[in-house]
């Protein structure tokens, strides 16, 4: 990336705050050569756009975070960003939309294709109409992706309407209040058209853990263990309120889905420990223990370690353990299967900001049926908990 970032912007008169045609005119004006300080003859503006990114920020803090993230995202997914920033009250000075085009300028050369951002503060009344505000503002014939950076109000009619108008809706289940909200997420999926994709950043965070687990079983001499797993232990960073971490629950549910395990029992055994009993396809018992560890700061709710062991009647055993290293940027893998020598591996996986997680997510065009099935398995399992939240 060369040169400095060059911004053009325009701020509306509050009286025109909801004049969507004026917003359109302003966007066109931004591309006028005069606005770009460019020679109208030799520099014909071209723009690369692959999608519309609609962001709904619950407050100013979320909006600032989303704005930073969208700048990074636009580098890989050039797009028009439409950011709705929820504000309280009816102060007109706070309801003024702003339009920006962020361009990369290289020295004295012409400005490179720019990224458009429309920021529209919305009060309670406007919030109810979000879906109708979006349609006139998106670039036609390009997919519209919705990202809700804060805690998503999954059952909120405005959220549902906006999700229905989008091709893909991105939420972060790490921010959900409890595992019971997974049911709301599943209900939302049922309400959406089949073409609409739900993507979960928390599921994306599991990707390296799933990848490393799968890698071990790519080795043919280790594959016998897939049908003989007897115990799985999952450690996650403790969350305020001692809730069962959704990420750990989804990892367990992913294993259960892929390996055809069926839950039959679940209970909270201690304040920081949950037990789930599953049966594999041959009826053998698989014990899953989820634990939380205190004082992990930014890692609260995130997986910290996972180990699984498998045993065969003939005496063969296999173990796989994954753990986040002290450096935190690495996940280390140690595995042994039968008489094979130990396998050691490490992958770079620091705590990723939302924008880094969103990069692959925004390439999705179809539903991730493994996520859907794992979510269903999680809901099925949660039904067995009699004392999920109690001590």
């Amino acid at each position, binding site marked *: 990336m*060369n040169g400095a970032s060059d911004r053009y912007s325009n701020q509306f008169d509050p009286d025109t705050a909801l004049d969507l045609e004026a917003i359109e005119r302003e966007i066109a004006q931004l591309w006028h050569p005069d606005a770009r300080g460019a020679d109208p003859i030799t520099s014909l503006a071209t723009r690369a756009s692959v999608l519309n990114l609609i962001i709904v920020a619950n407050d100013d803090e979320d909006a600032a975070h989303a704005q930073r993230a969208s700048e990074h995202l*636009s580098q890989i997914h050039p797009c028009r960003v439409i950011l709705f920033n929820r504000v309280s009250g009816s102060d007109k000075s706070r309801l003024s939309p702003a339009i920006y085009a962020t361009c990369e300028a290289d020295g004295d050369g012409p400005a490179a294709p720019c990224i458009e951002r429309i920021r529209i503060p919305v009060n309670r009344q406007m919030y109810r109409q979000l879906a109708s505000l979006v349609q006139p503002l998106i670039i036609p014939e390009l997919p519209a992706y919705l990202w809700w950076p804060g805690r998503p109000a999954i059952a909120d009619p405005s959220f549902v309407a906006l999700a229905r108008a989008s091709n893909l809706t991105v939420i972060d289940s790490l921010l959900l209040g409890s595992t019971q909200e997974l049911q709301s997420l599943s209900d939302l999926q049922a309400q959406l058209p089949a073409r609409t994709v739900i993507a979960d950043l928390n599921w994306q965070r599991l990707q390296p853990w799933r990848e490393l687990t799968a890698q071990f*079983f790519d080795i043919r001499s280790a594959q016998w263990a897939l049908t003989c797993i007897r115990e799985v232990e999952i450690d996650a960073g403790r969350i305020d309120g001692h809730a069962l971490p959704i990420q750990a629950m989804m990892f367990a549910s992913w294993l259960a889905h892929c390996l055809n395990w069926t839950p039959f029992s679940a209970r909270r055994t201690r304040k920081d420990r949950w037990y789930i009993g599953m049966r594999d396809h041959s009826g053998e018992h698989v014990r899953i223990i989820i634990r939380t560890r205190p004082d992990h700061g930014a890692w609260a709710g995130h997986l910290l370690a996972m180990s699984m062991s498998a045993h065969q009647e003939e005496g063969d055993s296999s173990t796989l353990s994954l753990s986040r290293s002290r450096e935190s940027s690495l996940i280390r893998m140690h595995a042994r299967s039968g008489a094979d020598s130990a396998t050691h591996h490490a992958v*770079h996986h620091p705590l990723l900001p939302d924008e880094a997680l969103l990069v692959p997510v925004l390439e999705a065009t179809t539903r991730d049926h493994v996520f859907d099935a794992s979510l269903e398995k999680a809901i099925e399992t949660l039904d067995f908990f009699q004392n999920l939240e109690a001590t």
Partner: protein
Amino acid sequence: MEQQTSHSTIDNPLREGLSLERLPSPCAMVIFGASGDLTRRKLMPALYDLALEGLLPPGFSVIGFARSAKTNDEFRSEVRESIRQFARRTPIDEGLLRNFEEGISYISGDFSSLDDYNRLSEELDRLDRERNTRGNRVYYLATPPVAYAEIAGNLSHQNLVHSLNDERWTRLIVEKPFGHDFNSAKELNETLLQYLAEEQIYRIDHYLGKETVQNMLAFRFANGIFEPIWNRTFIDHVQITVAESIGIENRGGYYDQAGALRDMVQNHMLQLMSLVSMEPPPAFDADSVQDEKVKALRSIRPIKPDEVDHVTVRGQYAEGWVMGNPYPSYRDESRVDPQSVTETFVALKLFIDNWRWAGVPFYLRTGKHLPRRVSEIAIQFHKAPHPPFETSVTESLEPNVLAIRIQPDEGITLKTNAKVPGPSMRLRSVNMGFLYGTSFLVESPDAYERLLLDCMLGDSTLFPRRDGIEASWEPITQILEGWERSGISTLPMYPAGTWGPDEADDFMARDGRLWRQP
């Protein structure tokens, strides 16, 4: 022994929904000539960047093999410094780097000593036992070409090459130059094929690992609007330029024997020409793509010895200034013969004799110490047949040009004509640019990252095949023979920092055309 298969989802239900195709199976890489610049600047930083992306397999290990005496720790220390200096992605993840280093070892050995290959074999066995590399090997020949046959032969004699029907795989990467003419390339191919199968030999041309070169395939074959006009009916000519601002940089010994034609045209430029001229492959797999590229190369019109001077221009740089720095003439460079007639600039005109390209000239131009570093392919279309404007308006009209820029500023520009705003009909050329690097601001992977990964995955799509190498040497050898017959004792000179000798401009002018100024 184990190997991943493309059916892993069936074998491994945990693979469901996870991409497997970019993850190689466990392996060890042996770099011959590991103390050289290529290892330091390109290979090790590329491997580290692959590790950072999580694209190296568990237990991945590297053995450096070179004559210099050094310990494992000394070699690791060199590797660490090279990664710190040249890795694409910074800051360096120190934890990952330590983990990467654990898999690095060094053997001080002679390429001709069988005892040293026995030590290599023992080290590879140790890696199989201790790091589960599973008998899979990549041998990278980062050595002078004269050593290729000897290394391949010794690897084979010491049973370090697995046959194709063995579950363990062996792959050999060979750097350019691959031969110095048609016969030597053919001979080298035949020698290597005594020890390895064609599917095990990866002849690397780093140009093919560049993102824009691959994007050219996407551009041509994923869009329906270009192929219908990609032929003699619409295209006037094609210009391929690979200009270098640098000189020969301490490579006088090699370069004075090679020259621009062998150094750049035979490999990079003819590969680019084959990509731009090939027919659409039925599938994007190695054989389908290579088949079409080879067909295009084989269709290059043979050049008779007495035609060579009409279709080529050679030049040699004289002293001059490039980007504000003074440089000596080529003949004054160290390890260059003061009477040398080696070309540092070459321009040539080739024709592809097939239905699509009959009569369309392909002009190729490359040189050292040109004004700037740039590589591009420019497709110039015929002028509009009958612009319905006044003569004064149309006489300055330029033809449409589609320029595919490979480096720097990768992207595609289309030159069109547009009306100048105002009351009268005045026209002017306008460039519409799609700059890859500023539309998608993410940094592209280095070519070596892509190619090393492809080799570990067994994907040879971006590596020239034997017949492709030989087909590309045929016209080059014809030109070399023609030049040899001419027996000239001096070449046209061009001051360093200019676009080549005047003769190159005359060469185009004879055809009523001009070189682009990229």
